[in-house]
């Protein structure tokens, strides 16, 4: 008896023959007769199967060709942030009962996923100061774009005003989402008026330069034009800074990655989405609600589903289906572990360390910190040389430098500092920058 070729497929040759006989056919070919014969069983030009040992060696070799953070000190941010991830988070997310379950369409056998989702929604409301939240979107930028579409539905207006301090990548995704819906996107500065028919003002705080925006004034400005305010916020910053809820923002979105999610080269992440209670029935995505069972016990279900594609089809609030529940679990576990005090302390550590770095870099000849006003996580530095050149040199000191912003600011580099950057790392960066800056 030959052994199976795949460890993932249990059927032996005997099993197959017994089953084919039960089906009433003699071979597999009899089950694919609807497929045009000329195209049946094509040769696949992909590589042959690897043993698990060889597989781990091959992927390990690929991984070793990447400069992993930890081995390198990292001062990159601009949308994704390196923070400490407690061991408990990694342990919980590895549980197969969470990892290998589907979207909780059968609530009686998905109370684990559903209760976690309810905790997730609750925590987002707490950190943002908003009244309701959904169970998660793909990532921060797509949540932000969905926020604009939601504002258009609510106001029945078709113009979206975007502040010019919003990260260009976010604006590009908004363009892709809004393009075919007859929505016009207008970029405005802080001093400009909103277009008369604006559905919303899109705000990012901290903005693309790391600066905390005056969300309250901006929300007021939007409301004065009959528009809504949609803010993309940095959730870590809310350990210290004023919440969008306190600023009367209508729709709040965020990239949740900073809260316990590995950087993982850009994904998977989780988009946070919250709003005022009056708008909840216009939200995109899954929403989990608390209810009771036939014995009166508390339990959780997917709710307000008549907004969604599987019920409403072409009239749904969004096409989103599979989202990022597992990444939501990572975030929920992270916030549970760091808790009330830790949430505040992580923000304060980031604040002090980033400001220390900014002060030290600003002292260097040839470098000047351009960020003016309160900032969080990151700040703009004008460098004496092109940032790409500086970053190449920093690699030799095992440092991954800041984000190259020379496309929007002369020799601009956005330097990010979080609680994982030790003073020794910051001092090494400052020293390396001074050495590199001094070389003609």
């Amino acid at each position, binding site marked *: 008896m030959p052994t199976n070729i795949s460890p993932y497929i249990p059927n032996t040759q005997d*099993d197959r023959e017994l089953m084919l006989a039960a089906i009433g056919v003699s071979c597999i070919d009899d089950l694919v007769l609807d497929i045009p014969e000329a195209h049946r069983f094509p040769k696949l030009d992909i590589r042959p199967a690897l043993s698990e040992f060889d597989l781990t060696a091959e992927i390990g070799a690929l991984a070793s060709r990447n400069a992993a953070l930890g081995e390198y000190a990292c001062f990159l941010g601009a949308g994704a942030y390196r923070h400490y991830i407690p061991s408990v988070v990694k342990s919980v997310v590895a549980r197969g009962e969470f990892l290998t379950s589907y979207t909780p369409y059968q609530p009686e056998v998905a109370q684990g996923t559903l209760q976690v989702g309810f905790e997730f929604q609750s925590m987002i409301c707490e950190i943002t100061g908003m009244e309701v939240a959904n169970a998660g979107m793909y990532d921060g930028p797509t949540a932000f774009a969905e926020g604009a579409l939601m504002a258009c539905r609510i106001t029945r207006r078709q113009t979206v005003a975007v502040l010019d301090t919003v990260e260009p990548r976010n604006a590009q995704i908004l363009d892709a989402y809004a393009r075919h819906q007859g929505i016009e996107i207008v970029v405005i500065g802080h001093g400009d008026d909103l277009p008369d028919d604006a559905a919303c003002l899109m705000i990012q705080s901290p903005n693309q330069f790391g600066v905390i925006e005056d969300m309250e004034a901006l929300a007021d400005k939007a409301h004065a034009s009959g528009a809504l305010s949609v803010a993309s916020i940095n959730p870590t910053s809310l350990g210290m800074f004023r919440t969008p809820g306190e600023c009367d923002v209508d729709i709040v979105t965020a990239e949740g990655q900073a809260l316990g999610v590995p950087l993982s080269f850009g994904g998977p992440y989780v988009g946070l989405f919250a709003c005022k209670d009056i708008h909840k029935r216009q939200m995109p995505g899954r929403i989990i609600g608390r209810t009771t069972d036939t014995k009166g016990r508390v339990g959780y279900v997917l709710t307000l589903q008549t907004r969604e594609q599987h019920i409403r089809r072409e009239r749904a609030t969004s096409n989103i289906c599979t989202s990022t529940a597992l990444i939501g679990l990572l975030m929920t576990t992270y916030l549970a572990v760091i808790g009330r005090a*830790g949430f505040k302390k992580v923000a304060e550590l980031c604040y002090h360390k980033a400001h220390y770095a900014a002060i030290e870099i600003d002292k260097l000849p040839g470098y000047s910190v351009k960020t003016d006003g309160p900032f969080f996580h990151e700040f703009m530095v004008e460098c004496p040389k092109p940032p790409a050149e500086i970053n190449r040199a920093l690699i030799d000191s095992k440092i991954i430098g800041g984000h190259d912003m020379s496309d929007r600011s002369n020799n601009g580099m956005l330097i990010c500092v979080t609680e994982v950057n030790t003073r020794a790392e910051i001092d090494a960066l400052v020293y390396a920058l001074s050495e590199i800056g001094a070389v003609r």
Partner: protein
Amino acid sequence: MKVPFPGEIDRRLLNERSVSGRIGLQLQEIDVPEQPFPDAGLLRSVEARLPEVSQPEVVRYFTTLSAMNFSIDTNFYPLGSCTMKYNPKVNEEMAFLPGMAGIHPNQPDETVQGALQLIWELQQDLGEITGLPAVCLGPLAGAQGEYSGLMIAQAYFQDQGDFNRTIALMPDSAHGTNPASAAMAGLEVVTVPSDSAGNVDVEALRGLVDQRTCVFMLTLPSTLGLFEPNILEITNIVHEVGGLVYADGANLNALLGIVKLGDLGFDIAHSNLHKTFSTPHGGGGPGAGPVLVSETLASYLPTPVVDRNGDTYRFAAPDKTVGRVNGFHGSFGVLVRAYAYIRAVGAEGMREVSENAIINANYIRTALAEEFGIAADRVCMHECVLSPQAQKAKGVSALDISKRLIDYGIHPPTMYFPLIVPEALMVEPTETETKDTLDRFIAVMRQINKEIDSDPDLLHDAPHDTPNTRLDEANAARHPYLRWQPDDDLTAVD
């Protein structure tokens, strides 16, 4: 389901366990001079009411919650159209290697050559498997792959100076995301009926296509689990009027090494890596929904894609790209898992996967056809759709049968979909289940069928032993209670 705990399960939320002063993590001390805080007006005035719980409490809380889930690791999970196959453990380990999980999306290309090579190889492999050679791995789930594909179709026609292609055709059996994505892409949805055999009604399709047809979106095999016998004629009909044909790849698990979408005349497709390519669903994502197109459409793909030049890899934007659909380069962690899967399965193994998926589904179909009825009873591909109308006539619904399956430790099939089948129960066993498991499922279904006559309330009241019996979904929607509130705030909930 056997409840793993005696007595009542403690369902209190974290905040209901919170005790002031407890911490779950010791954070490091500050090692730089403290800087002055900004004005108080910029700071939050009320602390976030996050829980104060110790580490052992956190671990026990989440572990207890996890035990209330059915999952592939613990249960047979024949949820149709979702391809709940085994998720190999080695893939998890690979995705969490420091060189994979610990790299920043904004790192310069020269510092992430291994990651870029992996993306490039996966682009190649998926292109080869589907016969649609140009691939962008960016889209974050199937629905985003669909939207990307529809943007590509629109950009292509606009480039041709053809601005009248405003209609997306799709069968009445389509997934809900198809019409939702089409609406988002500004297209008018027109439904093509199915014929009595469960296939696309070819004559009806012929009557519906014209110069306004942008795309025909088709799931293959269909959501009835059937391969369209007239597929070449169908793609030809759409091409004759200048339209494009889109494949919803949700059911690609039936086609690996069996047939290539590109060979059948499809122009655009998406593939759900969290279905066919074994990456875990995680209770509702993350997924990945790469978009795959013919050479003709390659230059419209979303940005970025990875190009190879000799031994060097770099991110690039296709010439006429439809733009960016997500924050960075896609669900990289999911891509690593899918790559590991393809490398472990290999060229030969691909066909094994689909053949066994097809055999397993037909084994169940043949065994249950007589008692439960099958929508369009003929050879199926990777899934079959039961239609228990005789049982419904006795007062027992597809929902009741589903809930009773839970009592036997089996996750219910997909219920009431496709919409065109009365009392639909869509069963997809996948190739990773043993014959023993299938035999037990068949035996349980037959037992349930007997219970319908002997004690129908066993079904009406099911499930019995789960942490919750049936939940009041109507009340949940009527009185949305969507977040934790302290007891004294409960009046604020509407």
